[in-house]
């Protein structure tokens, strides 16, 4: 018992008194050596011999110290500090290696952490609503309707909501992003959501002030509509004061009473919403199609999405019982089908495939990065063989050496964190080129503590693993100490391992090649887009938009009068040579052709072409710089003509009438939805082609309708036009006025309307090419990263192979080969490695080019120019990477190598 206590005390004392013990130990050794030297001298040795003999007899001092310390059990901390110093020293001696390894690991880990964060945030994390697993999206698919629209009409929603049993609640909503808050001094454009009152308790939101809607609340027109406002606008506009509850605010000139404030975390239906209205869904003109309501529901206790879907589909035929104006025949013909899927998968479904694919790609990149760094380590271990062998023969233990390798790996891993965090930052800022509109919930994602923790963990673990692989190799080679001491490189490595190594490097070169080709193709596309004929003249313009509130601009005549007056006011500004108003401009998403505006020649309705609609003032074509190819532009009376007059684009004219003269011909606006009855127009002019949303889509079929000041003669049915002109943009040509001037003019017209999107048409053009530019940049960065990986890979593998052939090089040099000959040998090895990769890469690029096609403009995915450039670049870079080992090989000293035999 006593000795156990004594032993414990001894250990503790040793642990805490480590430095004193070390001192004592040194004193003890000194004493020992002194005694031994004296003893040797007594045996008749000289002072020098006596000392040498004493040191020799004492044995490997390195090992001795280690073993003593190991026995003391304080080895861990002690060694760590020493190994760190050692690793730092080694890294300082080879900065190139360190930079390569740190950058490779850092980029790989950063990209992986970035995509990991996005995948987690988008695909895995629960939606921020109460009991979100039982929330479902209830869609209504109508075959033949464009854009995968799955929106409900008032009739289908109210029928299903009141009949379904497998859903405990069903809420409907729609949004409007062109609404003005008009109280106070500064009007503001906001997005509002109309949500049925039952939606809020269903989602489980608690207001941070005030209360939610009562079931009977409705936004049916009138004063004192109750609204909920966002925490964001509450703080920004109303000072975060709870006194706002019960107060009146003004939205679109109408008074609204704030009854509650919803917390920032509530981002339903999307995060831009600042004001929620209680939606009422009155079924005025029951119809199956023409839906505008998005429907979400909560599954009843024990119900599944499949059961709910079956039940709701079974309820479809009974719509005509509830709304006799919808005939069973019409329901039959519409072929509508209800879909029920979990809200989360409905939200993420469009992007899941992309994200998973991206995740796999990034995982492969990370794997390659790790392999490269491991290769670099092996190479380093190879080069440090002599050093290692000396350390072993001096008595350093294998374990200690092992710790050194792992420590070095850890150190490099830790350093790579410094690269990985910014890399993840870049990845998450650019979101890999994804758009918040493409990927739901993306706006919630950024570099957070989770990402940083993931990076730190991955960097350290991977660093240690990479260090350990080098160690395994070093350990298996320990028997060759003698060779190493004589300075002979005999790098063998098992054949399969080397084949894997070479295959991996070839794969990297292939990847770099494919990415370089893609980046080059996109670069050319981008250049081509810059030179593409736009069909209008963007230089020297300024545009802005206004959204007129329903009160008092509801009637067409009032709105048209406003636009006429505004046009006059803008024309008076100094330097402005022309002003026109229009619904939309080319290269904006609202100019996309739509299935709901199908135009056909009268009498040939089968020819219907999905077209983009625009509502333009007479001077629109002149101010935009769009040529009128045929006929005339609008004039007063065109709207009153029977049928009303329209202008069509060249593309639409060709599609409808071929080469025949379209002037004076009649066209009909048809719809596959019964709700929209056909209307007939007469063509009075043909305008030059302009692109729709994207330049690369080429000319788009457009039908222009008049936006005229004599709008009071409008036919009784507003539906003749696609839109009432309450959301209208202006374009000015000449020396454009400043934004401040524009704001002043609009304020003078109506102080409660904020002008928005004040920018030139050139900015529109830049935005339209932004997607190609961003993809090009991303691919460029990826190509550069892949190129770097490839260079590191080629360098390490070629160096490794060259180190194994030192003996051969020595013999060659001794037998009269020149240094240049040896250099060529190594360079050829590098080229052989790269050419396999390049061939694979070219194939990959040719195959993968198909996926790029939608982004390419006037350049073939197999363009020989880009392929050649990428191949030449890769060959040059490979030669560069193989140059260092080649030079090293040529410097082989035959004498040293051959002596080693």
């Amino acid at each position, binding site marked *: 018992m006593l000795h156990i206590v004594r*032993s414990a005390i*001894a250990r503790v004392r*040793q642990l805490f008194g480590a430095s004193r013990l070390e001192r004592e130990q040194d004193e003890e050794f000194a004493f020992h050596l002194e005694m031994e030297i004296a003893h040797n001298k007594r045996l008749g040795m000289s002072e020098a011999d006596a000392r040498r003999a004493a040191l020799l*007899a004492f*044995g490997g001092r390195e090992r*001795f110290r280690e073993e003593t310390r190991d*026995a003391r059990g304080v080895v861990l901390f002690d060694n760590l500090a020493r190994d760190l110093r050692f690793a730092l020293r080694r890294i300082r001696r080879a900065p190139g290696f360190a930079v390569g390894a740190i950058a490779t690991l850092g980029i790989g880990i950063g990209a992986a952490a970035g995509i990991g964060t996005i995948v987690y945030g988008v695909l895995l994390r629960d939606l921020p609503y109460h009991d979100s697993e039982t929330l479902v999206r209830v869609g209504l698919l109508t075959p033949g309707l464009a854009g995968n629209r799955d929106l409900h009409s008032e009739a289908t929603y109210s029928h299903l909501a009141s009949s379904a049993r497998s859903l405990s609640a069903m809420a409907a909503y729609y949004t409007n992003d062109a609404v003005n808050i008009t109280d106070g001094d500064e009007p503001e454009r906001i997005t509002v959501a109309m949500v049925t009152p039952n939606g809020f308790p269903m989602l489980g939101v608690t207001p941070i002030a005030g209360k939610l809607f009562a079931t009977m609340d409705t936004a049916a027109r009138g004063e004192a509509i109750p609204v909920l406002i966002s925490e964001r606008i509450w703080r920004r506009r109303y000072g975060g004061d709870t006194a706002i509850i019960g107060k009146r605010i003004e939205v679109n000139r109408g008074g609204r009473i704030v009854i509650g404030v919803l917390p920032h975390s509530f981002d339903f239906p999307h995060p831009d919403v600042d004001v929620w209205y209680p939606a009422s869904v009155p079924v005025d003109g029951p119809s199956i199609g023409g839906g505008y309501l998005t429907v979400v529901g909560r599954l009843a206790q024990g119900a599944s999405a499949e059961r709910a879907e079956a039940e709701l589909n079974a309820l479809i035929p009974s719509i005509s019982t509830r709304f006799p104006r919808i005939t069973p025949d019409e329901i039959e013909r519409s072929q509508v089908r209800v879909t029920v899927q979990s809200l989360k998968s409905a939200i993420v479904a469009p992007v899941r495939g992309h994200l998973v694919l991206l995740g796999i790609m990034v995982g492969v990149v990370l794997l390659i990065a790790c392999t490269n760094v491991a290769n670099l380590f092996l190479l380093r271990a190879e080069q440090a063989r002599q050093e290692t062998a000396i350390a072993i023969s001096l008595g350093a233990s294998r374990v200690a050496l092992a710790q050194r390798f792992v420590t070095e790996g850890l150190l490099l891993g830790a350093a790579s964190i410094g690269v990985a965090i910014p890399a993840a930052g870049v990845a998450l800022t650019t979101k890999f080129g994804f758009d918040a509109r493409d990927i739901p919930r993306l706006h919630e994602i950024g570099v957070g503590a989770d990402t940083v923790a993931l990076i730190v963990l991955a960097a350290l673990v991977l660093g240690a693993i990479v260090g350990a692989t080098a160690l395994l190799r070093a350990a298996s080679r320990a028997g060759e100490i003698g060779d190493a001491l004589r300075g002979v490189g005999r790098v063998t490595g098992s054949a399969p391992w080397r084949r894997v190594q070479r295959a991996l490097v070839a794969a990297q070169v292939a990847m770099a090649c494919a990415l370089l080709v893609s980046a080059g193709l996109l670069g050319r596309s981008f250049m081509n887009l810059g030179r593409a004929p736009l069909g209008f003249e963007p230089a020297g313009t300024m545009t802005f938009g206004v959204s007129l509130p329903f009160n008092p601009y509801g009637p067409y005549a009032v709105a048209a009068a406003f636009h006429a007056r505004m046009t006059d006011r803008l024309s008076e500004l100094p330097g402005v040579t022309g002003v026109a108003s229009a619904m939309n401009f080319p290269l904006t998403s609202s100019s996309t052709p739509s299935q709901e505006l199908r135009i056909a020649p009268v009498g040939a309705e089968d020819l219907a072409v999905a077209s983009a609609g625009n509502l333009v003032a007479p001077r629109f074509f002149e101010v935009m710089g769009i040529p009128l190819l045929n006929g005339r532009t609008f004039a007063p009376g065109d709207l009153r003509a029977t049928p009303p007059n329209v202008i069509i684009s060249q593309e639409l004219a060709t599609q409808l009438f071929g080469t025949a003269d379209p002037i004076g011909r009649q066209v009909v606006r048809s719809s596959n939805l019964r709700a929209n009855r056909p209307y007939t127009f007469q063509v009075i002019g043909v305008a030059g082609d302009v692109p729709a949303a994207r330049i690369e889509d080429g000319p788009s079929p457009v039908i222009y309708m008049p936006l005229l000041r004599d709008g009071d003669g409008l036919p009784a049915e507003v539906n003749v036009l696609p839109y009432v002109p309450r959301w209208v943009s202006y374009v000015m040509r000449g020396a454009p006025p400043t934004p401040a001037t524009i704001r002043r003019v609009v304020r003078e017209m109506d102080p409660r309307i904020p002008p928005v999107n004040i920018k030139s048409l050139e900015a529109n053009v830049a935005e339209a090419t932004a997607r190609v530019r961003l993809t090009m940049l991303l691919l460029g960065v990826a190509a550069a990263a892949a190129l770097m990986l490839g260079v590191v890979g080629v360098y390490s593998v070629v160096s490794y192979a060259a180190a194994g052939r030192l003996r051969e090089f020595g013999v060659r040099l001794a037998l009269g080969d020149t240094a240049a000959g040896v250099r060529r040998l190594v360079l050829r090895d590098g080229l052989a490695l790269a050419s396999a990769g390049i061939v694979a890469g070219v194939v990959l690029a040719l195959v993968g080019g198909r996926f790029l096609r939608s982004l390419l403009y006037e350049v073939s995915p197999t363009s020989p120019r880009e392929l050649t450039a990428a191949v030449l670049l890769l060959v040059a870079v490979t030669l560069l990477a193989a140059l260092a080992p080649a030079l090293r090989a040529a410097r082989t000293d035959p004498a040293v190598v051959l002596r080693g035999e």
Partner: protein
Amino acid sequence: LARTTPSNEQVLQGTLDLLILKTLSLAPMHGWGLTHRIEQLSEDALQVGQGSIYPALVRLEQRGWIDTEWRTTENGRRAKYYSLTTAGRRALGQELASWQRFVSAVSLVIAAEA
């Protein structure tokens, strides 16, 4: 050099502890003295690696079998002296017994007739 005599034997792994304990049981002494005492007692047949005696001493100290003390030598140098503890004395008895068993077992094998 005297130390390269071919008849010298490296101390068998595991027996070093026994040799140290036994030698220290005769008198407390310092590390250098211990190595030479062992060689002396074995009439130079056994040679203790001078470097390996210290780790062994640390180990034995940790087991509580020996105790250390800084003392002055006869020529006035400070040196670390090792002495046997009671536990060490008991351990020596056990080690001796097991050594005897080992030796006699080996002898039996060697002496066996074909």
